[in-house]
């Protein structure tokens, strides 16, 4: 359960950004969450509820944008989805794939601000 410390980092990061945009208020934080980030969406959402208390983001929402795994398929020569995260093969041609392009994301992508 490391989601609470992740949520606290998000709140801290967004609070710093919020200061730069004052007097506007941050009403939502958008997060890109890769399937291979090691973070569970539901756990992070509950942790965020706790982490935002007593912070400038007390009424701010967390909007999670889940990022599926894609790989650079060496047979297709382009970025492809995998069969599943338990089966790392190109979903189109079936070639085993080692080179991950997307899916490790754990980043704040945007903030929603209101006057």
């Amino acid at each position, binding site marked *: 359960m490391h989601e609470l*410390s992740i949520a606290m980092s998000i709140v801290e990061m967004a609070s710093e950004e919020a200061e730069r945009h004052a007097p506007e208020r941050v009403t939502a934080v*958008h997060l890109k969450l890769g399937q291979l980030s090691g973070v569970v969406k539901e756990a992070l959402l509950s942790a965020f509820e706790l982490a935002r208390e007593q912070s400038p983001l007390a009424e701010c929402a967390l909007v999670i944008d889940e990022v599926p795994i894609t790989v650079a398929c060496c047979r297709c020569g382009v970025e492809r989805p995998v069969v599943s995260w*338990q089966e790392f093969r190109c979903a189109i041609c079936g070639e085993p794939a080692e080179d991950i392009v997307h899916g490790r994301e754990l980043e704040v992508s945007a903030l929603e601000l209101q006057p």
Partner: protein
Amino acid sequence: MTTRLVEVRQKVLKQNDVVARELREAFRRAGVFVVSMVSSPGAGKTMLLERTLAALGRDCRVAALVGDLATDNDAQRLARSGAPVRQITTGTVCHLEAEMVRAALGDWRLDELDLLFVENVGNLVCPSSYDLGEDLRLVLFSVTEGEDKPLKYPTIFNTADAAVITKSDLAAAVEFDGTAARRNILSVRPGMTILELSAKTGAGMADWLAWLRARAVEARA
């Protein structure tokens, strides 16, 4: 009310990544090869490390950091090998972070070491998110845990560089299907190096030590 969207693009674990990068650079400059180990609790990390430190310590300068929520039992156990060992007690934290590694290294002279091991807290989930600046990350799982462990925890296998199947002396007793285990590892991480050993009986230990030495030489070349 009008809402304005501002793009940010900031990694949540940016701070950890910065420290990990600094550590990796410091390790490289000092010429020390750093191996981290992750597994579930009880997979045999400490036993393997105990035997490994003793064997490598004969002709290499080795040291270890060991992470646990509480107690310094592992550090005491490992110190018997004669190698310098430090315990990182994380309290309630379920994984090691780069800053904990940096703090634990303290006054150790990295340039006086050839190999440094970092044993993570026993956990197959949380450690996968944190870079520790290591050169090589090993994921261990014991034959008693079942062949499908890689399918249950694909993320940790995906962030590791090699897999070590431990307690091979118990394989027959628990009817461990080694072929299925290897197939499952390669399904979540195609091309992954797989080693199998028993630190207790010594089976597979020579291959493991030779492999480790070769990786260290390769990294420093």
